[in-house]
């Protein structure tokens, strides 16, 4: 099993005729993902990897049953593409674009909440259930990172994710489903909102979250554990522990404001509910082992 996507998920790709869309659609398909059609305005009638292209999502849905939309469009156009998918009634959307305007990300999340839809992204590699299905731009060919297994992974980062999952794999574990919620200050889906899915997934034995300074997503995870709605072992690794206060490092999301959102705060919140916080990437795998999590 898995969360969000599996081998039966029928995926529509928005922006499939673009360079990125073509490249990653092929990799999604090669990994087992059911890509059923694509959408690019002006390109109806063409095909990409033998899949038909339509002008609009609405037009595509007249010919296909679709469970999820994968958005490969530039950041400036992402809001419109996501809203198109949501307006057409699609309840799962992944958008990877890096550089979506902040106010657009707010509207995307707002509309997703209103529709009861789950949008993952942006500024992420997407979602992967290793060896089963993938939506996004994961280099699943890097085996020492994307190995099938029992650990659910949620992350705000890109390269750091590889760093951490490599350490999980090093200890003999693999990943059930990895969800990159993304590095934007307003990710469309937040860590805590995915915990119920991991809780319900029998093949997920523990969850690893890869967090960062800034925001309150890690604190929300602690709240969810506190409420008893998530009971599996949870290990967190958080970047920015030693970051100087008030500095903006990389992501706009990583601004420390008013003493909230510092890594120290996050560690305190998580440890208060008996979640485990690794100091170094390597400790993540070691902690899973120590906790007796079954691979």
């Amino acid at each position, binding site marked *: 099993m898995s969360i969000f996507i599996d081998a039966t998920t029928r995926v529509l790709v928005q922006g499939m005729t673009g360079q990125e869309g073509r490249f990653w659609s092929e990799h999604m398909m090669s990994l087992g993902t059911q890509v059923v059609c694509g959408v690019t305005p002006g390109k109806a009638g063409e095909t990409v990897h033998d899949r038909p292209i339509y002008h609009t999502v609405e037009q595509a849905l007249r010919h296909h049953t679709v469970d999820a939309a994968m958005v490969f469009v530039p950041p400036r156009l992402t809001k419109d593409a996501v809203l198109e998918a949501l307006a057409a009634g699609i309840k799962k959307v992944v958008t990877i674009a890096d550089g979506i305007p902040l*106010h657009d990300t707010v509207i995307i999340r707002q509309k997703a909440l209103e529709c009861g839809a789950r949008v993952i992204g942006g500024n992420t590699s997407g979602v992967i259930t290793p060896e089963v299905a993938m939506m996004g731009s994961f280099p699943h060919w890097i085996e020492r990172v994307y190995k099938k297994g029992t650990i659910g992974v949620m992350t705000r980062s890109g390269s750091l994710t*590889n760093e951490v999952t490599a350490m999980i794999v090093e200890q003999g574990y693999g990943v059930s489903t990895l969800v990159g919620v993304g590095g934007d200050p307003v990710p469309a889906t937040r860590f805590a909102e995915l915990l119920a899915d991991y809780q319900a997934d029998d093949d997920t034995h523990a969850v690893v979250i890869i967090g960062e300074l800034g925001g309150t997503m890690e604190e929300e995870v602690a709240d969810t554990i506190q409420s008893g709605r998530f009971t599996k072992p949870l290990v967190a690794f958080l970047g920015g522990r030693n970051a100087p206060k008030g500095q903006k490092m990389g992501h706009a999301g990583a601004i420390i404001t008013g003493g909230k959102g510092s890594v120290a705060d996050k560690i305190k919140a998580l440890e208060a509910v008996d979640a485990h916080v690794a100091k170094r990437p390597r400790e993540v795998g070691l902690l899973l082992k120590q906790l007796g999590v079954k691979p």
Partner: protein
Amino acid sequence: MKLHEYQAKTLFSEHGILIPNSRLIVDLTELEDALAVVGFPCVLKAQVLSGGRGKAGLIVFVRTPAEAREAAERLFGPTHRIGRLLIEQAVDIAQEIYAAVTIDATLAKGLLMVSAEGGVDIETLAVEHPEKIHRVTFDLRDGLAPYQATGIVYALGFDKNVSRTLANVLIKMAELFMRLDAELLEINPLFITTEGKIVAGDGKLIIDDNARFRQVEFDEEFLEEGDEAAREAHAEGIPFIRFTGDIGLMCAGAGLTTTVYDLILDEGGTVANYLEFGGPNYKKAVKAMEICLKVPSKVILIVTFGTIARADVMAEGIVDAIKRLKPDRPIVTCIRGTNEQEATTLLEAHGLTPLFDTEEAVKKAVALAKEATS
């Protein structure tokens, strides 16, 4: 993109929020004319982006031309090297408020925060008396509704004379926040004058860089300040922060770079600069190295774990940079990800000893930095 106080205030004023009468000057010769327009008493405010200007002596209240000249000479002088000075009329203040608009990421709304106790250290207030900071969220498509502005103003205990004017300023702040694609619009202090006017005493405005394409009014004039390395990095869109330590970071991915920073400090090392050339910048290794070399450091540490940002492409860039720039300090690499084998071969062919474990690389960099110091 952070705007200077005078830039933020110009935007406030254009949008109907009152600001004190003021003039911006760039050297001493302009002082007299400015003082003639602004009058006394007035305030000399250094236009720099760092916080805590008051404590740093960068905001000076003056009553006479002599005081003004002395203060201006000091600020333009060799100690502070201020580039721009705002000469601003002193306002008769009855009360100082704090007001800010930002985003509530969880609710996916705009967030207005107001406190009747402005001017002070708002972060301390937020921690010690969170109930004194009133909050209201609003739909980014609707703006702050008049009833919301009115509600917060009466909840704060303001009386009828001020409430309508203040509510209007709050609505305008929200409008401007939305129109400018702002990350933050903060006015602290927001003055209530003895005449009952609401006047912006300061202005902090951060514009979303991702929205620059539709916020075309912010031309080069509005660019962030900094030294040469910072300006070059900014021009290239490469995230960069300068510190004063030993190890120059040249990593890919904000999360990974931050983590490497943490590990260096854990090992007892210090950082010379943060530089992140991941994502769309992964092909800019030459430029990244060039910027790193402009910062004094004892060793350069390169850590990547790239996917779309291919390892071989990054390695090529690094090799190219070494050939061209002939760095005067040791380089430690830990380059992994897509086409890692090709990257490794390439680096080895150019005399480097690639590592593949981040902790190991960090330890080596810290050791090299210590060697160079001793």
